[in-house]
């Protein structure tokens, strides 16, 4: 991948368009490259067990990255997702262990399905808070979500006084058993988490491509004023993307605590950075208006496989960070080169057409 920008100097139109295709598929090519590299360099890398384990790791980041992609396409950023993961995990854990005390001598316990719904609702609600701050109170997305990052993390710590909710097996007489299904269950040989990822990803990709809301998300990021004049409900669109991001974070919170059968309030710290990295690696433009769900998923896989593969090779975690950073920077540099090349090819085509 690093040698692509050097070739960008090639002047002729035909080689330009070939190069353009290569650059458009760069994340995919990078994915195949890391797969090939690690299958040679790390023994057992291609074993089924390892692949499934890796895809579970990737799935967590992929959920967050999808939510992040929509937010970034509208020209915003959501720094609060990591904290939402933590808080939602705590909400789920609390409900499994304690239920809700009604203060009149009764305590309501929910079954696992209801707990999942409530947790998702909490995630969406925090997303809505982000959205309201940004649309109604005109707080810059970076600041609004930074504030919510701290608030949500603080609430997560407060919920248990900083302790972990352990042993979330639940009690059969209260109907709270089965929480482990999300994180450890399997359907047709694949982890449940992967199935959920497939469903959400397909839904998000459909939304982006075939619905007015999806089109509006891109329009708002491309030119907010023009969108407003065209009758796009800009505020509603923004509310939606932050709520969707909160929803994705809540799923991750559920899956992690279900996997561990415990909720820890510090879960999800710095997850937002991985999510942004995956989105950017997948071709989402930080200035808004550009990005795809497919690209983001591939980006999440590149990052996930890279870090798992390096672990298997025994590379120190310090070097892993350096490598991850370099990959992200190279991705953006190539992205810029592609933009320029695209413009040149378009101009040449126009000149040819007369």
């Amino acid at each position: 991948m690093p040698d692509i920008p050097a070739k960008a100097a090639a002047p002729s139109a035909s080689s330009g368009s070939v190069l353009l295709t290569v650059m458009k598929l760069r994340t995919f090519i990078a994915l195949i490259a890391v797969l090939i590299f690690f299958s040679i360099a790390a023994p057992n890398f291609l074993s089924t067990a390892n692949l499934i384990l890796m895809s579970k790791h990737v799935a967590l980041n992929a959920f967050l990255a999808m939510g992040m992609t929509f937010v970034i396409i509208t020209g915003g950023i959501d720094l609060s997702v990591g904290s939402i993961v933590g808080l939602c995990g705590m909400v789920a854990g609390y409900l499994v262990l304690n239920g809700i005390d009604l203060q009149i001598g009764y305590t309501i316990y929910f079954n696992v399905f209801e707990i999942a719904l409530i947790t998702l609702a909490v995630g969406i609600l925090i997303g809505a808070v982000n959205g309201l701050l940004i649309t109604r109170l005109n707080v810059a997305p970076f600041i609004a979500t930074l504030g919510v990052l701290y608030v949500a993390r603080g609430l997560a710590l407060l919920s248990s006084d900083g302790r972990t909710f352990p042993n979330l097996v639940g009690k059969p007489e209260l109907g709270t058993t089965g929480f482990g299904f999300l994180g450890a269950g399997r359907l047709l040989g694949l982890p449940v988490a992967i199935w959920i990822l497939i469903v959400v990803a397909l839904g998000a990709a459909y939304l982006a491509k075939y619905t007015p809301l999806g089109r509006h998300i891109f329009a708002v990021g491309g030119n907010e004023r023009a969108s407003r004049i065209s009758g796009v409900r800009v505020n509603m669109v923004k509310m939606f993307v932050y709520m969707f991001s909160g929803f994705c974070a809540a799923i991750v919170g559920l899956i992690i605590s279900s996997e561990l059968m415990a909720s820890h309030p510090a879960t999800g710290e710095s997850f937002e950075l991985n999510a942004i990295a995956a989105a950017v690696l997948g071709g989402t433009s930080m200035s808004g208006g550009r990005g795809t769900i497919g690209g983001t998923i591939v980006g999440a896989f590149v990052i996930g496989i890279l870090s798992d593969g390096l672990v298997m090779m025994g590379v120190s975690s310090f070097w892993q960070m350096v490598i991850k950073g370099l990959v992200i920077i190279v991705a953006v540099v190539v992205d810029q080169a592609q933009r320029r090349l695209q413009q040149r090819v378009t101009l040449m085509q126009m000149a040819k057409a007369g």
Partner: protein
Amino acid sequence: MSAIAEREIILKLEDVSKVYSGTVAVKRANFEVRKGAVNVLVGENGAGKSTLMKIIAGVERPTAGRILLEGEEVSFSSSGDAVNRGIGMVFQELNLFGNMSVAENIFATREITNRFGKIDHAQQENRAAEFLERLQAGIRPDMLVEDLRIGQQQLVEIAKAVSLDARILIMDEPTSALSAAEVEILFKVIADLKARGVAIVYISHRLEELIRIGDYITVLRDGRITGQEEMKNVDTQWIVRQMIGSDAKDFAKADGHLPGEEIFRAEEICLPRATGGLAVDHVSLSLRAGEILGIYGLMGAGRSELFDCIMGRHGHSTGDIFIGGRKVKERDTTRRIRRGLALIPEDRQREGLVSILSVASNLTLASLSRFARLFHIRGADERQAVTQVVRELAIRVADPAQEVSSLSGGNQQKVVIGKALLTGPKVLLMDEPSRGIDVGAKADVFRTMRKLSRDGLGILFATSDLDEVMALSDRIAVMSNGKLTGMFDRTEATEAALVAASALGHGPAPHTESTAHA
């Protein structure tokens, strides 16, 4: 002003051409600028005046030709280069920093500093005050530029150019937003500069102004220079003949259909200005189906703001609008579009288009719900609508999936119009629909307006081009300083009456200290 003939030439352009991707803006122009004189440049919109001036000021580089400054060939790589050689320019679009004070703007990039590199604000403000004093506009150097009226901002721009001590000073439409009193002051400043031997290049649309202050006149048409004379040898008719040439503008003839019932009415529309006063001041007007109502006015007269109010873009505007006799209670843009209003904004890039999306996505952006069943966009319906609009409006595009930014200005404008039409409007608001597009596209746009009015749409269009408003409108409203100052039938409107009405209510600058100091 008698001994003009021996005024020496300080700057000379020889066979200068400028080509932009696709269009030739200036073709082999020969232009002379004389010392101690006002060198006037006229031409219609898009004739190439601004491009020519940008070449002289070093903003643009000529594609071909030579520039001679005092007989020596020069090549400016930036406007800074030109400034160093003594060439200053007052731009038509204001190039000011709204977030900085007047003094900071005047001395931007050549700040007065002390020995340690710290900006000497007191010194800057004193010096700025001297220049502002000459303009008598009641502007204080410590005011923020964004708190000033457009006219005052234009004066700051002029003060900035004067402060350069330039030998050649280019003024591109310096009076477009000035009141009559402010224009008088500007003319005094110009006379003063002239007496000091400064060569002034003056661009304006207002012929009476040119004849009054000009010494030499050069006329541009379609990028070519069609006439160069001493002002005392020419009259208005000569100028118009050189400007328009034999072929008159193609405005598409009126077809004589009669307007129908009232389709739109605005009552008492008001919009407060951030700096106090009203940007739109109790404007009421009515429009009939199939009628084209032109709104004429100078820059900053409140035309765009009126349209914004009608579209519901300002929550704090007051007044009522009616469509087909029924009051529109909805106050947001989305629902007003559904009620049958559509706006074609003045600033295509900033407000009209989402430039990174495709032509097709831009066209259907405002009308997606038409193509959606529940939440699913039916691709076939959308494609069909796009193809139809592309054909009807003669948008020149190879593939509607192309990015809209790859189109020429005229075709981009057609995309904006197409987007508005796809919403199925009853009333179309067009703000400067012919700005910045080539002659052919203009004719297409005018033809489209005629056709739409024949189909029964009501069209409100704002323009600062007299010919355009006279040729296209069934009735003409004139706005000045936020107020409706005249309403003429096509048969009774004269250019003189329109110009007079557009200058009403332009007194000396109102004092707005309270906001500037708060």
